[in-house]
């Protein structure tokens, strides 16, 4: 945790109340965001996102698997986050495991939608190779390299960038295979299919410090928070997931207010992220 003196705490809280934070930002402004894609050659897609001092990597790996018998027409996606103890000493041991699990859960909630797959950022039907027999399993792994607050937003942005960088090999299913046999497949190593990532949401975390809430909190600001709401919003302004952190309770009307502010902030974040991702793709080529 961050150790702060009484004066520093007062300075942070006072700045937030005056709409001028310690690094000169206003309450709803994000830090400088930079995106780099294709950083991991072994993965099907990857991206590194730096958000101020926070630095994360996301990788997407695709493997052929069998669909769940309840949803034979859908592929599977799993999201895991690893917090390396090199980023902060508190990530070591059980504390780190719990924190990683919390982040993974929040990301799963924001990206995977309901049990039936509705509202998912990734169209699960596009992962199917052969209905009921074979599908792509996507493994999305996040890694925290350096932590300076607002990890969830950075991981969300990294996953969005990694997914738009992902190419799934084209699979040709051998025709004539009977229904009972395992289908024979031919995985192309030249032709790749791109995802439609327009529906992938971004995550906006609003951290409540005192009576105000701020976007993109640094770790110093996070140490002063009473509660935080992470809201994932897609391009259409629909809410795709929401999680609350922090012990203090919130008034229901404040929550609705935060949701509408998050929607407004997300429009700017999506536009900024889109231009960064396309710039990174051009650079990679």
């Amino acid at each position, binding site marked *: 945790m961050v150790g702060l003196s009484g004066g520093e705490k007062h300075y942070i809280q006072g700045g937030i109340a005056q709409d001028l934070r310690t690094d000169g930002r206003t309450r709803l402004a994000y830090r400088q965001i930079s995106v780099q894609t294709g950083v991991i050659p072994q993965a099907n897609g990857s991206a590194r996102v730096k958000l101020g001092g926070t630095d994360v990597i996301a990788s997407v790996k695709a493997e052929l698997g069998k669909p769940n*018998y*309840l949803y034979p027409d859908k592929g599977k996606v799993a999201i895991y986050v690893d917090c390396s103890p090199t980023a902060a000493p508190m990530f070591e041991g059980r504390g780190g495991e*719990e924190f990683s*699990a*919390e982040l993974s*859960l929040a990301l799963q*909630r*924001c990206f*995977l*939608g*309901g*049990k*039936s797959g*509705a*509202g998912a950022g990734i169209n699960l039907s596009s992962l199917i190779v052969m209905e009921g027999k074979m599908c792509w399993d996507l493994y999305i792994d996040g890694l925290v390299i350096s932590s300076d607050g607002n990890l969830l937003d950075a991981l969300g942005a990294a996953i969005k960038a990694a997914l738009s960088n992902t190419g799934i090999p084209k699979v040709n299913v051998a025709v004539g295979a009977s229904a009972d046999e395992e289908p024979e497949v031919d995985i192309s190593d030249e032709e790749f299919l791109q995802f439609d990532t327009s529906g992938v949401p971004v995550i906006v975390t609003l951290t409540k410090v005192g009576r105000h809430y701020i976007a993109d909190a640094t770790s110093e600001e996070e140490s002063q928070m009473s*509660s935080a*709401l992470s809201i994932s919003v*897609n391009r259409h*302004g*629909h*809410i*795709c*997931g*929401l*999680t*609350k*952190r*922090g*012990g*203090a*309770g*919130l*008034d*229901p009307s404040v*929550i*609705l207010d935060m*949701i*509408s502010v998050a*929607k407004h902030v997300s429009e700017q974040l999506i536009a900024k992220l889109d231009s960064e991702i396309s710039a990174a793709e051009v650079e990679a080529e």
Partner: protein
Amino acid sequence: MAGKSSTYSLKKQHRLKKPLFKDLVDWVRPDTRGFHQCRPAFLRTGAVNAASGSAYVEFGSTKVIVSVFGPRESKKAMLYSDIGRLNCNVSYTTFATSIRGQGSDHKEYSSMLHKALEGAVMLESFPKTTVDVFALVLESGGSDLPVVISCASLALADAGIMMYDLVTSVSVSCLGKNLVLDPITEEESYQDGSLMITSMPSRNEVTQLTLTGEWSTPKIHEMARVITTTRWLRPYCDYIEDEGHLRSTCFKLHPELRPKNGRGKPRIAAISEVPFSSGEGGA
């Protein structure tokens, strides 16, 4: 389907039928409840003798038992803390779900229970000590976590742990165009989105909120209305559509229940006229 073989397939047994209720407006819930109606509930404190406090709660077929131990000395390895620790653990019995041992899928429930309760418990009232909250789901019938949270807050109160308010929790599932309150397992497995809210009703504060699936703004507002108009602590009469009593004791519906002499029980305003000193009530 007349299959060739007649071997018993376990997998088929558990395959749920695709429900008809996708986009229809007037389908009936599997247990014939209204969309905005909770399952019948049974709550009891003092279920376990050995614990400092315990509670047993049934919501329909979801059955949960929670024991609270402590406050007791924190383990030696723990660092000094001037506020108390809350240690939460949620486990499932192996027979809680239709497929044996499926309850182990819910590893995140322990941390979610902790997050829901930490805002309500006055941790500063027991420094250097730990309170253990152990929840066991005996039967999983849907909306397990909200039932666990409500039950745990009852058990904490039973143990005499200081709290700002009792914590109540409920989940809402979105199925097609409809919002259904307190979903059962079958409804949960086909939901398009879900929302769980944990609140302290008399402080009007939300301690925990999670949401999945895609929600438009009107849906969010409808959800907020459904949740805030659902009476959790106050008895609610759906005949005169007001709170204060239940339908079964509504005088409008059952005039024979109205007290015979006088104008019924004194109203709350009348009580304040009673002088503080005398117990006889304005004699």
